[in-house]
């Protein structure tokens, strides 16, 4: 049992980047992120026994993590998603490595919970069919939702560019 636990810890340690990133995508508050992380760990532990190495370990992590978060979100019934988002007013607490990371966070924050999962899995390189399997949806549903997100991206692009321009101007004005 002890060695099994240590084996499990090793798996978690190797994939903690994925798990923490998913928690950040769905929860803005650090405490909520910690709670979600613990819930994911427990669910992974429960299904660790039944995990067969037919699937990639990261696929299993994504499947369990996303389904845990989605069901947690459903229970909470909070409408945190689709909030008004403007880079000018949002305080982004996550890592601001570059413009793309910032844009990614803004896009994900403005999406519905299920759409966030679709985008994240797409970014990870999964095909629509695989995403559908992982999220227990039909491939058509995934494709439709994905196309809608892509259409919305053009709107985000213009908002992002105009706000960035405004921010740059503000910075330039502040300089002595």
């Amino acid at each position, binding site marked *: 049992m002890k060695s099994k636990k240590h084996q499990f810890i090793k798996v978690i340690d190797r994939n903690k980047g994925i798990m923490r990133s998913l928690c*950040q995508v769905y929860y803005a508050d650090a405490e909520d992120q910690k709670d979600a992380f613990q819930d994911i760990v427990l669910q992974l532990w429960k299904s660790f026994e039944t995990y067969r190495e037919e699937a990639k370990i990261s696929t299993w992590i994504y499947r369990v993590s996303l389904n845990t978060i989605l069901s947690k979100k459903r229970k909470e019934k909070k409408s945190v998603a689709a909030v008004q988002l403007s880079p000018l007013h949002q305080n982004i607490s996550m890592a601001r490595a570059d413009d793309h*990371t910032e*844009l990614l*966070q803004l896009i994900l924050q403005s999406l519905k919970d299920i759409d966030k999962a679709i985008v994240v899995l797409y*970014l990870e390189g999964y095909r629509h069919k695989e995403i559908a399997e992982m999220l227990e949806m039909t491939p058509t549903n995934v494709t439709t939702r994905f196309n809608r997100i892509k259409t919305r991206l053009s709107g985000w692009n213009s908002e992002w560019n105009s706000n960035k321009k405004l921010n740059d101007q503000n910075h330039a004005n502040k300089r002595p």
Partner: protein
Amino acid sequence: MIKIMQIKDLKTAWKQLQVVNDLQPLETDEILLLLDKNESLSKLRTQRVFAQIIVFVVLTILCQGG
């Protein structure tokens, strides 16, 4: 010139976010504690169900006597 962003352009950003989050060490003790807590909780739950079954059986036997 303004570049039009596509979702696939954000793949690197997603990887970058993971790398940043992977840098923080894992609190192993906390996880082990969480697993132990969960184990003892489920043990307790099983014990409680078992005790309730026994009470139910005893009561059923006693009630049949009348």
